[in-house]
């Protein structure tokens, strides 16, 4: 029942007249509505409610995560500071009751009482259709599926009404984790097929505007760029019934206003605020501020190794000694990040991210630069993505200042957000800063995208090395076959090589910062770094 209808009926009963409700009734009803409603404010909102759609943006992932179910999901563990953090190694059923992994396939038994939002039962047919859709629509979803060696519709087999089998193309440790990311969500196939057309066989136009899943929430109203309203699905079987009945997600472009809304207690939760605000809010203690490191994510300085002067490893090492690491941590991040530098005396670990061995040391930098034949420096350009100017701009200015001491003249090139991807793809920028973070939290996954000679978009440095490829491929094979000794040796191998060759210089592991009222509990960190409303509670 809507609040307004409720008010009308209550005032009608109480006063027996058509007068507007009494003030006391208004405030108590408003208070009730508030205590079960979560009000989120953020800068941007979704452009599509379906992650399979063309160009669905990151806020759209949040809707998909909360409104659709997957076969499996991750368990929680205790993360940094006691905040629940997803456990990359432990899975639990969401739509699946049971998961049986065989040598070359995995079989899922579906929960028998699972229903879509329109009441239709969730069957194996829906699962197959949804996974077929994910590997066939092209673009990001298909790409993400392929990261777990899920590429063909034939891999998904309906065994009976409530049993589905996924066949492996090859042994890949990432296949199961890839079934727990946002993309392989289960869609109401009958409903969507009814609304599909010849030009749009997967019904993407339909699911763009409404959610057709079985998830814990359903979108009841969406005004693009303004607000999203989600209501709880009372029949959800994917987990315990969420405590929050209604989620109102408002787009508030002004960061200052988001902070004001939080501090006045009008909004419950917000992210995407400047680091300085987070740090101040943390200090004054009126709100809960959670800062957690991006899993498998690093902000770095990249150098194009195909062109002089950065084709010379000595120049790259000189730069690695010349970066003002600590200043960046203090003045740009206000301490909200994990340093990724200066691990001089520490042995390399089988982990990623981990700090490299360089530290700010101008004398060494000068010596290396002289050895490389650039004693008088050179001229270059440092580029950054304007979408993240809040961090990137001061960072680049600090780097520019520091490099000037070596005689390196750097011009700052600000690239508009829309253009950034294109520029990265061209692989022509000599010097740049960027962030990469992988959904799947495995060192070889990160290195496969960022350092492998097959030169993916994220190998922004165009780095190619036969030795590196051998380590990365070795680690991937070893992970699939469970050969721990080889795996450890290969991971240490590629990490050491990446630090010795330094095509990119890690700066820090960024934090995801979320500020919320003290009465909000249940925040969980997920690999996608968006909110999971299902575990949250108010009061």
């Amino acid at each position, binding site marked *: 029942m809507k609040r*307004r209808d409720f008010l009308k009926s209550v005032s009608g009963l109480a006063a027996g007249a058509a007068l*507007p409700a009494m003030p006391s009734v208004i405030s108590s009803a408003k208070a009730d509505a508030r205590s079960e409603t979560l009000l989120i404010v953020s800068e941007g909102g979704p452009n*599509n409610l379906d992650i399979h759609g*063309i160009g669905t943006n990151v806020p759209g992932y949040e809707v998909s995560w909360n409104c659709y179910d997957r076969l499996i999901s991750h368990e929680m563990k205790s993360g940094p500071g006691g905040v629940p953090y997803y456990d990359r190694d432990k899975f639990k059923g969401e739509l699946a009751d049971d998961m049986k992994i065989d040598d070359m396939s995995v079989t899922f038994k579906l929960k028998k009482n699972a229903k879509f939002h329109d009441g239709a039962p969730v069957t194996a047919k829906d699962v197959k259709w949804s996974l077929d859709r994910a590997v066939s629509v092209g673009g*990001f979803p298909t790409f993400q599926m392929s990261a777990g060696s899920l590429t063909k519709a034939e891999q998904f087999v309906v065994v009976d009404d409530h049993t589905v089998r996924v066949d492996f193309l090859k042994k890949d440790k990432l296949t199961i984790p890839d079934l727990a990311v946002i993309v392989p969500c289960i869609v109401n196939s009958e409903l969507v097929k009814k609304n599909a057309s010849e030009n749009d066989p997967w019904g993407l136009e339909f699911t763009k505007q409404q959610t057709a899943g079985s998830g814990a929430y359903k979108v009841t109203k969406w005004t693009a*760029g303004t607000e999203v309203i989600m209501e709880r699905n009372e029949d959800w079987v994917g987990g315990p019934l969420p405590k929050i009945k209604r989620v109102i997600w408002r787009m508030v472009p002004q960061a*200052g206003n988001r902070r004001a809304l939080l501090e*006045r207690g009008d909004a419950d939760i917000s992210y995407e605020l400047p680091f300085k605000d987070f740090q101040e809010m943390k200090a004054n203690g009126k709100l809960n501020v959670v800062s957690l490191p991006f899993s498998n994510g690093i902000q770095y300085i990249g150098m194009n190794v195909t062109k002089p002067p950065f084709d010379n490893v000595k120049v790259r090492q000189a730069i690695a000694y010349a970066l003002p690491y600590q200043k960046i941590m203090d003045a740009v991040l206000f301490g909200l990040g994990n340093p990724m530098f200066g691990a001089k005396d520490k042995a390399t670990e089988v982990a990623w991210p981990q700090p490299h061995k360089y530290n700010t040391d101008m004398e060494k930098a000068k010596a290396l630069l002289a050895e490389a034949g650039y004693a008088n420096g050179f001229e270059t350009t440092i580029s950054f993505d304007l979408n993240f100017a809040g961090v990137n701009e001061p960072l680049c200015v600090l780097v520019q200042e520091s490099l000037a001491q070596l005689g390196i003249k750097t011009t700052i090139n600000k690239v508009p957000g*829309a253009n950034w*991807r294109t520029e990265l793809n061209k692989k022509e920028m000599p010097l740049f800063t960027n962030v990469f973070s992988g959904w799947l939290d495995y060192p070889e996954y990160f290195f496969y995208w960022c350092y492998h000679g097959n030169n993916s978009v994220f190998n922004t440095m165009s780095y190619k090395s036969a030795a590196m490829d051998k380590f990365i491929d070795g680690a991937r094979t070893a992970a699939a076959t469970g050969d721990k000794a080889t795996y450890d040796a290969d991971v240490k191998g590629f990490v050491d090589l990446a630090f010795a060759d330094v095509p990119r210089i890690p700066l820090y592991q960024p934090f995801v910062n979320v500020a919320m009222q003290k009465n909000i509990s249940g925040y969980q960190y997920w690999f996608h770094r968006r909110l999971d409303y299902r575990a949250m509670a108010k009061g």
Partner: protein
Amino acid sequence: MLTMIGKRLMFAIPSLIGVVIVTFLLTRALPGDPAAYFAGPAATKEAVEQIRKKLGFDKPLIEQFFRYANDLAHGDFGNSLTTGQPVATEIRNRLPASAELTLLGLFVSVAIAIPLGVLAATRPGSWIDHLCRITTTAGVSLPVFFTGLVLVYVFYFRLGWSPAPLGRLDVFYSAPPTVTGFYLIDTLIARDLEAFRSALSQLILPATTLAIFSLAPIARMTRASMLAVLASEFVRTARASGLSPATVIVTYAFRNAMLPVITTLSMVFSFLLGANVLVEKVFAWPGIGSYAVEALISSDFAPVQGFVLTMAVMYVLLNLVIDILYGVIDPRVRLEG
């Protein structure tokens, strides 16, 4: 009169065609590749190409243009990629929000600026003249977003008098059924006084922000124009004939001083409609300006083209209305093609 209006509208057609061509070319000339942008962070080259094909950006420019023109002729402005909605619907939904805010802001501004200007002109050098000078200088020299933020800081954050700057209505009210798209009117039609109050209280701060900004040109123009008229011979004659000062100022002087004020008003209005982007950003107002800017940032062609075209049509209509008003105020002015 009607034929004149028709003729005027006819003359507007070539300029609209020009606007269509220029915006089309300008948006294509923007740096940035929408296909790469919308392919997302993890896209391969093939994925980008697939998206380019789906969006039709692989076709030659001239073919893209004719497609666009053909769609336009059928009333289809295309789809926005950032919000995922048809541009025509978005503009239809957002224009009233901007218009309501701008009109109210302009109304407040006029209600203060014109009496202030008239009073300043009748008593040059007095305290009221200085007040006029100070307010207008301050108003025009404070950037809109700054005034907006200060107002939010003082009246919402510090004093708590104003509601949260969260758009057109309090979060827990639902929007009235759309009749005009203006919430102040629609809530009254729906006899929902609570929502009316909420809509009005949400409007006060942003409208004030706009009013402060637009005070200056209107007040200064009123003052200057009144001064000129008051010094003219017919006012001297009227005074000499013993008419009361009120009659002289209101009936004779003010009416004659109105023409330049109306011109300024039209300029201020069209300027505000486009320039209240910042106010919309500060107050999370779901208006047309913030929509266009967001689209521009993400190289989303369709909304930018739709926005420019809508604005062009509005300017044409506004100019027409102003010309007609001239005729009403001063019968000597003829509406000509």
